[in-house]
């Protein structure tokens, strides 16, 4: 670093940043001691049950799931209907032996098949002490995942990917003694 800046750096170094307010210290203390009710930040995350935003997430997830099922059903229907339209009925004669209709391997491959499912844990929050059945102490942990499912059509190589956030709440028995 430039030698000529040494004095300035030393002067800046001597300054001490302003301390956090005692209120912040209290809030951190109450959160770390488990009394989250008074110590949580003024905002809440989008997937907290206390926030109305979770409704939006879940609605979007359900809508995405329905759309996905509809797309897959439509594609399967298209795939199954292809052979009928390709075979020209005019080539049949009275002498032709009647063969049973079979589903060829090409039709099987023209379907979306699930190929991958992953879930990534991106946040883990200890939500503090709760009581189960009124008197059994426990801790509530919230695990937040992103689940991703992938389907692939081996014939066209097209793929569909569906990602959805998921909260998992675990209540673990705890001894407070």
């Amino acid at each position, binding site marked *: *670093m*430039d030698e000529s*800046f040494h*004095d*300035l*750096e030393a*002067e*800046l*170094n001597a*300054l*001490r*940043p*302003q*301390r*956090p*307010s005692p*209120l*912040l*210290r209290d*809030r*951190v*203390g109450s*959160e*770390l001691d488990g009394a989250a009710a008074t*110590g949580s*930040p*003024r*905002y809440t995350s*989008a997937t907290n049950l206390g926030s109305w935003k979770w409704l939006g997430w879940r609605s979007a997830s359900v809508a995405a799931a329905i759309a996905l099922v509809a797309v897959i059903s439509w594609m399967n229907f298209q795939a199954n209907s292809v052979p009928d339209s390709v075979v020209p009925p005019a080539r049949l004669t009275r002498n032709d032996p009647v063969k049973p209709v079979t589903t060829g391997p090409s039709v099987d491959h023209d379907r979306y098949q699930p190929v991958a499912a992953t879930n990534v844990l991106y946040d*883990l*929050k*200890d939500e503090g002490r709760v009581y189960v059945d009124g008197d059994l102490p426990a801790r509530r942990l919230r695990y937040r995942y992103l689940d991703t499912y992938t389907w692939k059509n081996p014939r066209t190589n097209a793929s569909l990917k569906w990602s959805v956030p998921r909260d998992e709440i675990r209540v673990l028995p705890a001894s407070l003694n």
Partner: protein
Amino acid sequence: MESAHEHVTWQNWFEAHGPKLLLCARQWTRSLADAEDVVQEAFVRYWRHQRQLPGDPQALLVTSIRRAAVDLARRESRRAVREEKSGGGLEDGGIIFETRPGDDAERRREIEAALRRLPAEQREVLVLKIWNELTFEQIAEALGIPLNTAASRYRYALAALRKELKPVCHG
């Protein structure tokens, strides 16, 4: 920087490092209240879940604070038209540095004013280097910029401050 394991309680650790973290948060948030929220979220997460991780805790916390500030800004931007440059926490006119007995209050105010006038990208590097004691490598990683960019922004910031501030007369 000492590890968090060396301190028995979070209070000791927070007492020692809270001011630096708050200064860091103030440059990425709109107000002091937002900065304190962000520090609370990052610090509680660190103390509960990340304390045992290897590496420099200050660098980890700075990254965590930055993410929390970005998340908060996104949430806020849904509510109100915002994206006035971050840095509001520092630009709101509040005190940045502690007043200590015997110090030159006028000089301190001069430095605070000069800091506020720095471009945000230079100021964040300066704050992380001087008061959070991160290396250029850690700064580059925390801000997602090349190492050389971090170093040159630091030099530009010092040059700009030197230009703005009158030299101190000793004696």
